[in-house]
């Protein structure tokens, strides 16, 4: 029965991912990744932030093309780099961020790009589309006003419309990227029930999620990626929480040798009044009951998954976003919510996540960027003092070791690491006593990363309180005196920086409690 078993094997195989490589700039997003997805299975794809999951999805859906390797679906090569070609081959996707058109109604959202037509393809088959849309949504157990622009519908319903769109094209492989990330528990259960329903119809599902309990609930097999490389594929029966986390983090846990010893006097310093005191901070639907404090000279790291609410908490503390309840105190002074000006006034500074867009004015010179946040102190009777501006820029460039031949060069000509130093320097110019850093070394090369880390440590040693948000666990572990793990908008666990491990952090971030 050799022949028969071979036949069933090729029958069972839907998608073969074969030695795929993809690099963005100098960063290898995917390296030699190979695995198979079987027909009618729910195949979970796991990995930390930056493991390459999103890149893989983009390749499978034709949004980008691989540098090398092949993607074979139903024994035929996928048309790489062709969104509609991949759709035609039977791949549908539910993206992580909403890919809905907010101004179009549900019908148009489902069909745009592959409209049903009449009159020789000239005109839209409006009635047919309306009927089919209603049918699809009914199958999903959702009743939605088909005439309202999607932007006015609640998120869960928008998600269902995206589902309907994906299902309308008779797909064989349905990729779901964090479909429950923004849904409530009840809505999530409904989504999971739908996944099972799709599976019963023989559709394969490539399911990306950080919620381990979901994976154990619905997946048949699990593939783990780490740093752009394939780690393993296991049947879900052979796995448990801890094993899966270990696969995601990697066996050889980075020993924390880089870590500088926390100065002896730290225990005395904690007796001092804290620089930042956050009490019961809440914002409806975003984060709840966040309380913590940071002492002078202390570095507190905030870990958690993307979307857990870390950046939102930081933005609320700094006054960019409002909050509903709770208080923020800096050096004993209560801050009113929603005022960046007040936050700056009491000595707070923040380096935002997206430095290219929020942190720097790229075409402006290094000098002007460095002094931008501090122009008030450089004025003489309302006129900007060129001499003092130059002096301050010079001092910061020396302090931070920014590699630039001329402070008048536009900042966009610098390397990523140096740009990041300029962003930090810009805020240091105002001599803050509390610095918030959101992803301070994203997209920065290793050498520059070490420099930025050293700089942060030095500043802390001079007495500055620091809050660091990072998705890179090793960075959090290297820098932090104390680590807060955020899970679904709450502080799920707190660790001492000296003793915490990557596994502990990841477990808390994924499961929501300390292991």
């Amino acid at each position, binding site marked *: 029965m050799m022949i028969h078993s071979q036949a069933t094997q090729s029958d069972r195989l839907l998608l073969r991912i074969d030695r795929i490589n993809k690099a963005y700039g100098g960063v290898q997003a995917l390296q030699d990744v190979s695995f198979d997805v079987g027909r009618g299975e729910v195949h979970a794809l796991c990995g930390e932030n930056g493991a390459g999951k999103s890149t893989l999805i983009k390749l499978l*859906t*034709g*949004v980008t093309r691989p540098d090398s390797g092949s993607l074979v679906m139903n024994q035929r090569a996928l048309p790489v780099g*062709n*969104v*509609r070609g991949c*759709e035609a081959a039977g791949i549908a996707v539910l*993206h992580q*961020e*909403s*890919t*809905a*058109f*907010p*101004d*179009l109604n549900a019908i*148009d959202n489902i*069909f*745009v*790009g592959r*409209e049903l*037509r009449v009159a020789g393809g*000239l*005109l*839209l088959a*409006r009635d047919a589309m309306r009927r089919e849309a*209603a049918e699809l*949504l*009914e199958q999903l157990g959702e*009743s*939605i*006003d*088909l*005439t*309202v*622009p999607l*932007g*006015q*519908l*609640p*998120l869960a*319903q*928008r998600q269902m419309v995206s589902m309907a769109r994906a299902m309308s094209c008779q797909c064989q492989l349905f990729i779901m990227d964090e479909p429950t990330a923004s849904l409530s528990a009840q809505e999530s259960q409904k989504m999971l029930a739908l996944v099972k329903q799709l599976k019963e119809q023989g559709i394969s599902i490539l399911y990306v999620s950080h919620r381990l309990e979901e994976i154990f609930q619905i997946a048949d097999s699990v593939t783990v990626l780490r740093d752009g490389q394939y780690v393993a594929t296991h049947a879900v029966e052979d796995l448990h929480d801890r094993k899966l986390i270990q696969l995601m983090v990697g066996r050889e846990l980075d020993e924390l040798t880089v870590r500088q010893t926390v100065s002896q006097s730290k225990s005395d310093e904690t007796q001092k009044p804290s620089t930042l005191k956050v009490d019961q901070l809440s914002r409806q*639907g975003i984060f709840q009951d966040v309380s913590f404090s940071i002492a002078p000279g202390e570095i507190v790291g905030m870990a958690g998954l993307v979307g857990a609410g870390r950046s939102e908490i930081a933005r609320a503390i700094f006054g960019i976003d409002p909050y509903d309840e709770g208080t923020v105190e800096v050096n004993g002074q209560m801050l009113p919510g929603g005022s960046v000006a007040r936050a700056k006034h009491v000595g707070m500074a923040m380096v935002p996540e997206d430095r290219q867009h929020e942190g720097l004015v790229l075409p402006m010179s290094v000098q002007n960027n460095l002094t931008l946040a501090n122009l008030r102190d450089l004025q003489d009777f309302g006129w900007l003092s060129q001499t003092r501006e130059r002096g301050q820029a010079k001092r910061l460039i020396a302090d931070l070791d920014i590699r630039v031949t001329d402070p008048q060069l536009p900042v966009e000509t610098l390397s990523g690491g140096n740009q990041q130093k300029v962003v930090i320097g810009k805020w240091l110019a105002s001599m803050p006593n509390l610095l918030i850093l959101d992803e301070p070394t994203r997209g920065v090369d290793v050498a520059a990363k070490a420099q930025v880390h050293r700089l942060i440590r030095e500043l802390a040693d001079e007495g500055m309180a620091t809050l660091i948000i990072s998705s890179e666990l090793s960075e959090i572990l290297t820098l932090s005196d104390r680590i807060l793990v955020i899970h679904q908008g709450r502080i799920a666990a707190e660790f001492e920086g000296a003793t915490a491990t990557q596994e502990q952090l990841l477990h808390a971030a994924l499961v929501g409690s300390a292991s």
Partner: protein
Amino acid sequence: MTPNSKTETPAFARITTRREFGLAVLIALITIFVSFFDPRFLDAINLRDIIVRCAPTAIVACGMMLVIVTAEIDISVGSLMALTAAAMGIMLSENEWNLSLWIGLPATLMLGTAVGLLTGLLVTVGKVPSIIVTLGLLTALRGFTTLIMGGKNIDGLPPSLQHAAKQGFWGIPLSVWVAACVLVMTLVIIAWTPLGRRIFAFGSSRYAATMCGLSEKPLKLFVFAYTGFLTALATIVDVPRLPTIESGIGLEFELLVVTCVVVGGVSINGGRGTLLGVLLAVVLMTMIRPVLTYLEIGEEAEKWTKAIQGTLIAIAVIGDSLFRRRGRGESRS
């Protein structure tokens, strides 16, 4: 047939919050007020005059609406109107080339379409922002017009064309018939063709459109070429009403058209707007001038027209951004 009533907003509330409703009410109030002041405002001859004045603006606004829905803009239509008018005049005038209508009119339409296509190419292939491209064309096309007209006005258009433009058919000028056809055609494009749907989709979310595999180029080439075509069409049906063709034709026409589209509720951020809203705004903008005349503001009418138009555009844009913000707040994205 909408399945669920729970998610529906009451129909009345939905209608009253719409831009079209506000515009219709405003037009009605102004009409009632002015006819109370001077009943001659409602005379057929005056209403006919208003409708005739609306026609060219409505024709070009149909194209401009689609351009703005894709989050682009075309501010060269006034100059393009002058250029096509000059070209038409030179080709058809008995004092100039004296060509047949069957050659001159299609050639004029092709000239308008070609300029629109050029704009589209510069925006999509050349990747120059449309505001810059059309700002350049605004000046350049006006310059060409002056050049080819050689400093003199053109008259002597074929009498048949002048007659069609002034008296038209069954007492209604050609421009009104054409405007009606263009409105229907545009409505069909918007509501019944994949092309129209994709134009709105692209304007609504560029990201989502890319993820769906929609391509930008054909959509934008179409909206600019369509606008160019319609501008030439508006020239053909409206300009022959005038005794002579001057190089100043269509001056500030682009401002009027853009104002109508924005006041009509088309979002300058793209993706949203209705043809009905644009049409109502064209009527509102066009009636300001005659209304002021009937209110016997006299000499000052011209100045007031501009001031009121400007104020309306500011109100419309502020209203749009407030609406956007509120919409964001309701549904976290």
